[in-house]
């Protein structure tokens, strides 16, 4: 636009000067400018009729995996001398191979395909529009348009699977699962002995006990195993995650939640997720693969935030979780959290805290010195005291050195927990 105005001004300026001065030379000098302008208008692109398709090689992936984006543009309108196409990629995605911007000629009825490769950190990335601009050969006229081509790329946290996580909430659901239900019935673990009842299998008769009684037979009873409600809580508060020089321990927490949700869902449990940051991001409890997808999407969106309302864990309301269910909190813990967690435990919830160790994490970024070591010792003592108080209240706390993968660091402890609790 500005080019055509500039040229038009030149042409009119020269023509007017020629007229005023009565000198044909000025008009002669205006001729090349006029030709340029006229050719630009003559070859100006008409209304664009483009069809653009974008496809992603994979719309669910893990951090730093390469995603190939393929764009095909077909021209159903008139010839376009120069078509500039820019796929507006979401921020944080990095183009690794190729380019999302292309300039090419697109004759009527033809199509052009190009690809580029992106990669990025955990997140949810919406692809909304592709901007296209058709320009005549001299760039005098320019038609711009934003074409909607919606796509979404999810980059889920990468985690190593946990084989089994033992939990023992007070209340279970009615469906068969793998969690001891504190109720006698069919199962694998011995639960007790009761009088033989009609219909009991002869295999269940406890002959030793029966031998001590003349009148009745006694049968072994096994503990029923059922599924349970598990509420996962991801602590996304900045004060609990952001450490020295903006280093964040949050990614480790997200990885832990992903691994835990995967393990609990594989065991058949009903799992919900609460992201506790600058707002409460609640994924309603559910079972199976669909719930896994929902949780992974919530984790892809999760980010740390500051909120004066959610600075403490007071808003971790018991109404969010079914009574006497299992709550698993992944948090590096701050001192104020003690009371809230103890209250939850007092209401009958089984609370398991997996706590990424912020002291070890932060020490990795600090230069070794006597002051740093002293500070680390003080903070370590405060933290040990907090953990000790929590454990005295019946809350199981597992410290996790995040430099070791979760499955290696706390996996064995999580498997053994059945005996601990």
């Amino acid at each position: 636009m500005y080019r055509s105005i500039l040229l038009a001004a030149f042409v009119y300026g020269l023509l007017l000067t020629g007229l005023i001065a009565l000198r044909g030379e000025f008009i002669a000098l205006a001729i090349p400018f006029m030709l340029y302008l006229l050719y630009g208008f003559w070859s100006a692109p008409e209304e664009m009729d483009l069809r653009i398709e974008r496809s992603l090689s994979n719309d669910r992936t893990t951090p730093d995996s390469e995603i190939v984006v393929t764009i095909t543009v077909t021209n159903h309108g008139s010839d376009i001398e120069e078509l500039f196409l820019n796929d507006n990629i979401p921020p944080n995605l990095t183009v690794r191979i190729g380019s999302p911007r292309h300039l090419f000629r697109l004759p009527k009825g033809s199509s052009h395909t190009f690809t580029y490769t992106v990669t990025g950190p955990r997140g949810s990335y919406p692809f909304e529009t592709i901007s296209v601009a058709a320009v005549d050969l001299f760039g005098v006229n320019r038609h711009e348009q934003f074409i909607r081509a919606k796509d979404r790329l999810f980059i889920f946290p990468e985690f190593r699977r946990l084989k089994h996580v033992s939990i023992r909430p007070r209340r279970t659901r009615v469906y068969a699962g793998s969690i001891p239900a504190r109720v006698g019935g069919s199962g694998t673990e011995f639960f007790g002995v009761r009088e033989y009842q009609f219909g009991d299998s002869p295999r269940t008769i406890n002959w030793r006990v029966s031998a001590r009684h003349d009148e009745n037979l006694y049968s072994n009873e096994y503990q029923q195993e059922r599924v349970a409600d598990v509420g996962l809580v991801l602590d996304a508060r900045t004060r609990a995650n952001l450490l020295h020089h903006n280093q964040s321990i949050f990614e480790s927490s997200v990885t832990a939640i992903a691994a835990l949700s995967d393990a609990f869902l594989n065991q058949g449990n009903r799992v919900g997720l609460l992201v506790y940051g600058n707002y409460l991001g609640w994924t309603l409890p559910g079972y199976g693969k669909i719930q896994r997808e929902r949780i992974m999407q919530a984790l892809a969106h999760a980010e740390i935030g500051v909120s004066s309302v959610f600075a403490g864990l007071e808003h971790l309301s018991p109404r969010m979780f079914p009574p006497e269910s299992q709550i698993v909190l992944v948090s590096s813990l701050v001192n104020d959290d003690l009371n809230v967690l103890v209250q939850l435990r007092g209401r009958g919830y089984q609370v398991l805290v997996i706590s990424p160790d912020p002291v070890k994490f932060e020490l990795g970024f600090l230069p070794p010195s006597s002051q740093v070591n002293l500070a680390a010792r003080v903070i370590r003592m405060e933290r040990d005291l907090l953990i000790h108080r929590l454990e005295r209240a019946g809350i199981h706390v597992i410290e996790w050195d995040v430099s070791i993968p979760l499955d290696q660091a706390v996996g064995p402890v999580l498997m053994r927990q059945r005996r601990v609790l």
Partner: protein
Amino acid sequence: MTLTALISSIVICSISLAYGFALRGFTSFAIWILIFGVGWLIAVWQEWKWYTPVALFLATVAAAFGLWFGFIPGWMFAGGIFALFAWDMSDFRQRLRLMAKDDDTRGIERRHLLRISLLAMLGLFLASITMLVNVQFTFEWKALLVIVILLGLGQLVGWLKR
């Protein structure tokens, strides 16, 4: 290819104008024109985008003055046309930067250069013809030109309003 064309057009524009002025004894003015040409080349190197439209304006004004004072029209036309050529090349070079490595840069460059060269030659030819024909400014011609300019201005304003 584009850069070569751009630099060549700036050099030809500056030398044509400077030579045209120098032939009529305006040596100091010719030196200033050459300095202006060197400045334009530096602007290309330093990517001062604002310089190109200013340079086009100055070159056109210089060519117009040269024609006003009756300098050899060929040099003046060459100066004006190659300034236009350089202005176009400069913008085209910016557009080419948006191209990806696997785009057909050569094809687009070739087509563009071909058309702009043909257009420049046609412009030069028509301008020379106009000078040769040496049309007298009669009242009828003036009236026609005024009408054409007013109509054109009306069209331009209407188009800008849209």
